[in-house]
């Protein structure tokens, strides 16, 4: 999947905004949003928040985990844990990327937060890479991947599944059971 598609999926997540207008509920096909009261926070999907923000109709409130200290703590926990730890958002990387680049004047210490998110991502990705390598070497065909986020899974796609498919073909070949045309049709 292209990262833009993962981003598309992540844009459904809710974020808190403070509108500068008042309006009743908006009946979206995906569900109702609002009502909007000028100055009062309300949850909307990210894509909507970004649209309203672009039109200067709201201020976006960063989710509370988008904070240097909290991210540092997450990173430390990630480092000390053998398994993947649960992230505060299923799309933490995308959400951070979208909110930080779209709304930098709404959130203080943007650059530091950006670095902290990237550090967390890097720790997880390098852990992922070693687990993938170990998984391939030990020859499993099934693995549990709890708490990996969509973008992380996407980063090893199609490499990991294709490598497993290939190993499966290699193993099947020796059993002579694999579908092959050259024997039957050539």
């Amino acid at each position, binding site marked *: 999947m292209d990262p833009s598609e993962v981003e598309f999926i992540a844009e459904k997540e809710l974020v808190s905004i403070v509108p500068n207008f008042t309006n009743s509920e908006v009946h979206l096909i995906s569900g109702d949003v609002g009502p909007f009261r000028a100055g009062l926070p309300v949850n909307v999907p990210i894509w909507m928040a970004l649209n309203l923000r672009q039109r200067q109709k709201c201020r976006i409130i960063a989710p509370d985990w988008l904070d240097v200290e909290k991210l540092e703590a997450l990173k430390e926990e990630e480092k000390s844990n053998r398994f993947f730890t649960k992230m505060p958002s299923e799309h933490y990387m995308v959400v951070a990327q979208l909110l930080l680049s779209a709304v930098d004047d709404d959130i203080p210490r943007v650059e530091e937060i950006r670095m902290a998110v990237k550090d967390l991502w890097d720790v997880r990705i390098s852990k992922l890479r070693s687990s993938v390598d170990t998984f391939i070497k030990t020859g499993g065909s099934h693995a549990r991947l709890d708490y990996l986020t969509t973008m992380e899974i996407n980063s090893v796609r199609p490499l990991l599944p294709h490598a497993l498919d290939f190993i499966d073909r290699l193993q099947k070949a020796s059993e002579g059971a694999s579908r092959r045309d*050259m024997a039957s049709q050539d």
Partner: protein
Amino acid sequence: MSLCQSYVPNYFSIQDILATQEKVPCKFEMQVKHLGFLDPGSDKRDIEIGTSIELPLWMASVLNSQRPSIAEVGLPKIFKEAYRDIMKADPCVVDLHKLAQYFYEFGMCLCMLKHRESSEISSVLVESFKQRFRQILDWAQHSTIEVPESKKLDETEKMIYHMGREVGSSLYLWLTEGGSLITAADMVIQHKKMKLTQKDLLH
């Protein structure tokens, strides 16, 4: 386009046609009339019993599958014990592109001929790929450009690497530039480049 499936050979796959075009030694156990020209070292009309010829794998598999079999299929050197030992010792340093472009596909076909060393070949194939995979993973994810070492990969490894690298660079692009720009279709870009080079040639 959007489907991203792993490679499995089918009737129309060029990769498979090329892989089965690679040659193996065949020792004839039967006389074959009128096809003496298959042996480039001979000008006889027939192929005599005991003749050894290097033939493409697709033909070898036919010779082998006839009952009684027309020829015994031997192993190309890359799958002989000496090379298998090299592959076992450190598969990561071997330049497969040079030694056997279709190492795995070719090896799988050999296994399916039920060669008596099939199980050894099969385990070399599996182990080699498992060991070499880490490199492919690192190259694909670390670098947006094609790393020169990737030239040493076998063709199927290359396919996996290229797919991985595409993802690696689109992820890198997303991380650094974000967003999703609409871009011209690949073929359109190719076509434009072609036109430009043609222009250059004319001027």
